[in-house]
């Protein structure tokens, strides 16, 4: 009885309480995150075959020289760069326009633009896959048909595949990123603009010298999530091509390659090596970010 109360006292002490509070995270972190990463690094040096698992050195990292892997890496990087290039300026401009004093029905438009974010990637994939169908009657072919082009085989040519992927990306995330920028804009004090007006600045100058610099924290955040979203893109391509095989690997990404090796071809060692490479890229990007911005995106000022 006495022992229990001592334990209770210990548990309830102000020193121990914080550890109890953060325990769920620590447990999840150690069990699922840290364990998985360590396990992955070990597996990347192994030939994983059930009971006959053996260490084979850096053999698995030969994948780095494989043409398909390089292509998937290039695809991921290209997708990331272009999606960042699209998903930062466009939502920023939309937010600035929507935030303008002359705009009516702001809330309605804001909501409408947000709706695609509510849909699952599966639903989005189904719609876009069909919209970009090869049939003459599919929606996109009707659209280009109106300009006397087509019908096109959208999902089997690199150029149009990228178009479709960026369409999905824009469609799903413009509203969300715009929301980030809208909330960023709320933080900019109104009097700054008034001062600028008095100084005779036009709208363009205000945008350039006040809005964009003051939105920097938001931009850093949006950039961060866009980079990681872009590098880990898989589901969109998976849905668009109804599986992980796209014609000539036009839509194969880093995660797609990881999935293919690990879950279809029974090459767990190679898949782990891809995971390690992926992790390294993510960490390097983080370091660069830290350097450039001096702070982690999303961390308090």
């Amino acid at each position, binding site marked *: 009885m006495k022992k229990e109360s001592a334990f209770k006292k210990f548990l*309830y002490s*102000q*020193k121990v*309480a*914080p*550890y*109890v*509070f*953060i325990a*769920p*995270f*620590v447990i999840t972190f150690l069990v*699922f*995150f840290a*364990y*998985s*990463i360590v*396990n*992955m690094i070990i597996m990347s040096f192994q030939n994983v075959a059930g009971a006959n698992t053996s260490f084979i050195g850096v053999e698995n990292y030969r994948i780095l020289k494989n043409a398909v892997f390089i292509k998937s890496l290039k695809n991921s990087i290209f997708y990331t760069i272009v999606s960042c290039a699209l998903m930062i300026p466009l939502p920023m401009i*939309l937010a600035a*326009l929507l935030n303008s004093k*002359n*705009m009516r029905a702001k809330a309605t*438009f804001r*909501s*409408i*633009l*947000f709706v*695609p*974010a*509510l849909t*699952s990637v*599966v*639903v989005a994939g*189904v*719609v876009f896959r*069909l919209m970009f*169908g090869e049939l*003459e*009657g*599919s*929606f996109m072919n009707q659209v280009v048909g109106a300009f006397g082009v087509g019908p096109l085989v959208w999902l089997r040519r690199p150029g149009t595949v990228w178009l479709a992927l960026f369409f999905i990306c824009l469609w799903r995330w413009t509203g*969300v990123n715009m929301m980030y920028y809208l*909330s*960023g804009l709320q*933080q900019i004090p109104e009097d700054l603009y008034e001062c600028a007006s008095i100084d005779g600045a036009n709208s363009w100058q205000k945008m350039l010298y006040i809005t964009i610099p003051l939105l920097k*924290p938001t931009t*850093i955040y949006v950039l961060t*999530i866009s980079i990681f979203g872009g590098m880990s893109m*898989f*589901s969109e391509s998976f849905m668009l091509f*109804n599986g992980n095989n796209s014609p000539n690997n036009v839509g194969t990404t880093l*995660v797609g390659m990881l999935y293919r090796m690990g879950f279809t071809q029974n090459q*767990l060692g190679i*898949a*782990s090596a891809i995971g390690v490479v*992926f992790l390294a890229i993510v960490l390097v990007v983080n370091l660069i970010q830290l350097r450039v911005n001096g702070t982690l*995106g*999303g961390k308090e*000022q």
Partner: protein
Amino acid sequence: MVRKNRIYSVCLFIFFTIVAIITLLPLALLAVSSLRPGSDLMRYGLNFSIDWASANLNEYKMLFSGQNAYFTWYKNSLIITVIQVALALFLSACVGYGFAMYEFKGKNVAFVCVLLVMMVPTEVILLPLYRLITKMKLINSMWGIMLPYLVIPMLIFFFRQYLSGISKEFLDAARVDGCTEYGIFFKIMVPLMKPSFAAMGIYQGMQSWNNFLWPMIVINKIDKITLPVGLQSLLSPYGNNYDILIAGSCFAIIPILILFVCFQRYFIEGMTAGGVKG
């Protein structure tokens, strides 16, 4: 000047109307197509041409007839979403509270870990995590889907941010009144955190409801899969079941759409919470 403003305003309005139409177009296509038979889709493609005279709700009837697993998936998704949201909110709030209100040894290290998890896309550890879940015999169980994702860094971050506005003297006052550490959390903090629970609940609800890749990997029994995975399984190399797919896709958006319409403000708060505050 006023006139110029008015023209500007009309232009803006027109511009946003066009943007809104483009945004809603894919969903409208889906809705229109759900009134046509699936075989039409296969033959003519997805477009707006519809013969209103022959439009019907047959696909929805098929959906509701119960001759398919659609509502089983729906139910699975609902259950998982509700449980995951409840647990994730509670656990992440605890952790966020711990970080915000206490000074303790190892706090910085622990917080860097939070950031680390936040920065590494979950796809990186897909494979080892899957093997781990298999070893834990959680394959084909909804706990397998939820367990690794019950403590969400993004939520921790938000709650920590939210709570850091509350002064610590307040806590000391409660202690003087005889409240235990946990009593403070449950009796004082949780009521204070209600609005943030709403925002984060919606954020997490959206994530859980729409989650695809991880549930697809963890569950392989057709009666245990979640809605997005189920919908995807209707597309197969051996013929696609468009009748249920299209109507089912439409119906899958509805609950979240209703939620959105009702609780817009929280949605937006939830989504932008990760962004930079001031």
